């Protein structure tokens, strides 16, 4: 399968949104390898948080073409949301919805909880000062920073997702999450275990000085 076409995204755009990099491609590789297994779970609702250019979501949508999967793309950055929508259309994908919001905050999870069959998140995982994680729509300098700045141990944003996992994943749902060594994947796994989830490392690769993990999270039986 060819790579998603992102030729419509300009260099100037990439100063304000995350440009597909090694972590992006590792995640795509993991999803390609896992696709057959995921299809056996018959996923209907897919959600990617932090779609950036839309590269991963386009890749996933193509892997699941002609299946039931309908995807939601979420990004806090309005430019990323717009470009994600273009990327999906550009790659012949129509079963999607893009929303410009912070994580899944506006979703009425008490009514529509535990509905996500495939959840994907390449979070801002770089350890930084806490104040760097703030996204301010009026200050474009925060746009690119908030795409990678993860605050304390690079975990401030990821932790929010972990805390919500039970409300998000459907009974047979699966989550794919990127983490680096500094995020302490063992601690992530322990935390999730306490919450009733099993964590499996599906990819582990040293890339450009970072030890990257793709974690697969499912409910314990």
């Amino acid at each position, binding site marked *: 399968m060819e790579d998603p076409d992102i030729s419509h995204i300009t260099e100037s755009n990439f100063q304000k949104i995350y440009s597909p990099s090694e972590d992006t491609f590792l995640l795509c590789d993991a999803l390609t390898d896992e696709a057959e297994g995921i299809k056996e779970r018959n996923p209907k609702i897919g959600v990617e948080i932090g779609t950036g250019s839309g590269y991963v979501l386009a890749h996933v949508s193509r892997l699941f073409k002609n299946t039931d999967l309908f995807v939601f793309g979420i990004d806090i950055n309005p430019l990323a949301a717009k470009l994600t929508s273009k990327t999906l259309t550009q790659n012949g994908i*129509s*079963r999607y919805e893009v929303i410009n919001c912070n994580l899944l905050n*506006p979703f009425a999870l008490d009514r529509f909880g535990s509905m996500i069959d495939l959840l994907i998140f390449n979070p801002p995982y770089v350890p930084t000062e806490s104040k760097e994680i703030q996204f301010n729509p009026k200050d474009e300098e925060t746009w690119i920073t908030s795409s990678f700045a993860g605050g304390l141990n690079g975990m401030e944003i990821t932790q929010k997702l972990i805390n919500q996992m039970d409300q998000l994943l459907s009974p047979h749902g699966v989550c794919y999450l990127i983490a680096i060594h500094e995020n302490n994947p063992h601690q992530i796994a322990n935390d999730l275990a306490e919450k009733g989830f099993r964590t499996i490392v599906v990819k582990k690769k040293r890339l450009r000085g970072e030890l990257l993990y793709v974690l697969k999270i499912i409910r314990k039986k």
Partner: protein
Amino acid sequence: MLESQVKTCPEEKRFPLKIVATEIEETEIEFQRSFIINIIPKIDWGVLRGALEEMGLSEKYEIGSKVPENYEEDETFLQLAHHILLEIEIITGKFVCRGTGREFPIENKIANMLLTSEELN
């Protein structure tokens, strides 16, 4: 599926958001039967009916506030549900919080649900 996150909005008014649609598009998306059958029971049909009314489409698409029995075998209903749920898109408009009147703009089919830093504090 969205609700208002405005802090001063009373809980019971957060869902559903009111829809103001300035520009609507009816598109074509491939029909996946098992997807529609699966999603139908998860939708609040009373709310959906209200949404269609707010969009000025309740005469064009008449639905009850409950799903017909044996809907899995009702081809007409499945097609209608597919059309309403997936093929009607708001290009431009807004979601409005019923508790506070706060508007969330929709542009190019994308809703901007971000709260400002003032609203977050």
